[in-house]
């Protein structure tokens, strides 16, 4: 499953932690992409490495049984 969205806030450590924690609650494999960078959404440092700013265009990919719920949950954090 794929979803494209616009970041509603700058990426801070707190936001990254929320993303990683939210993603960590799902079994699906979840990836977050920004420009030419990609990261495992369950990994705090991976998310931090994206270093995006408010308004950035992000892509979210989820693969697994709970993919749809995972995407909805992470969208609400971004």
């Amino acid at each position: 499953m794929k979803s494209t969205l616009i970041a509603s806030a700058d990426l801070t450590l707190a936001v990254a932690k929320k993303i990683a924690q939210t993603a960590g609650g799902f079994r699906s494999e979840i990836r977050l992409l920004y420009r030419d960078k990609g990261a495992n959404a369950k990994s705090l440092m991976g998310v931090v490495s994206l270093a995006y700013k408010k308004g950035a265009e992000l892509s979210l990919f989820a693969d697994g049984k709970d993919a749809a719920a995972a995407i909805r949950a992470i969208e609400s954090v971004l």
Partner: protein
Amino acid sequence: MLGRYNREKEEKGVSAVSAEAFAAALSLSPVCLPANASLTFSTPAVCRPGLFLAGYEEFFAKSRVVVFGSAEMSFADHLPKEVLLERARRLFALKIPCAVIARGIKPLPELVRAAEENRIPLFSSKEITGVIGRKISDYITSALAEKITIHGVLADVAGMGVLLTGKSGIGKSEVALELVHRGHRLVADDSVIIKKKGEILIGSAPDTIRHMLEIRGVGIINVERMFGSVAVRVNKSVDAVFELSEWEEGKTYERIGAENLQTEILGVSLPKLEIPVKAGRNLCVVIEAAVASLRLKEMGYSAPAELEKRLEQSE
């Protein structure tokens, strides 16, 4: 495995960098620098504009960076001014990526004017022509290199670049910390950017999180601050892939070590080991042993083969 590594393959072929970044990386001084100039490269080759300046324009490779050496500059200086200006205009009108004058030779006003008119960056380098040409090629090769980002840890273990992969939470960062503690060096934790240079893969960390580790229960640590500059390195060739996985009862793991498992990253074949994680197994020591074993294999030694021989010779 192959599919997983290549999924995030990024575009190759054309790469754009800002003129400022190009100048900074190669210590060039700008002679003509149009605002917001970005350089687009499609080939690492450079070319010398001698024939073009002499009036022969057939087969001119306009996609290459143009390097003026002393021969071209001296020839240009001998041309009547109006002829030089006309040819320089024709050269820069081809929309070459940029031009560089070597040896710190004073740029001729006609060249500068033609570059400015066509909004093509023109730089000056203190280096001799051959050297700056090679450096430009190396820089573009790197900018054009195919690359992917892989979720894992890259460490220099006794000189071998080991990429540790495995699920989130399997303990890759903890292993990285332990490896550093035992004198090995961390290159990247979590996201490893791998570039292909020739048939060699070079791994590094994304700038933002370079040399930082997240250790569950502790938080984020800066490995370089904590263990010193000898505990880290900026990049390292990727020589082997060790996949960490949860120990599964009933699953068959490598017992003898006579098989040669391989994996592929960006088309480059690498030895691969699957290392099961189980409480009570000291992973770091297992990884060191795996590295030593791979090295012995490369040197032509095989412990299973020797054991086989001993069995044959036994009475």
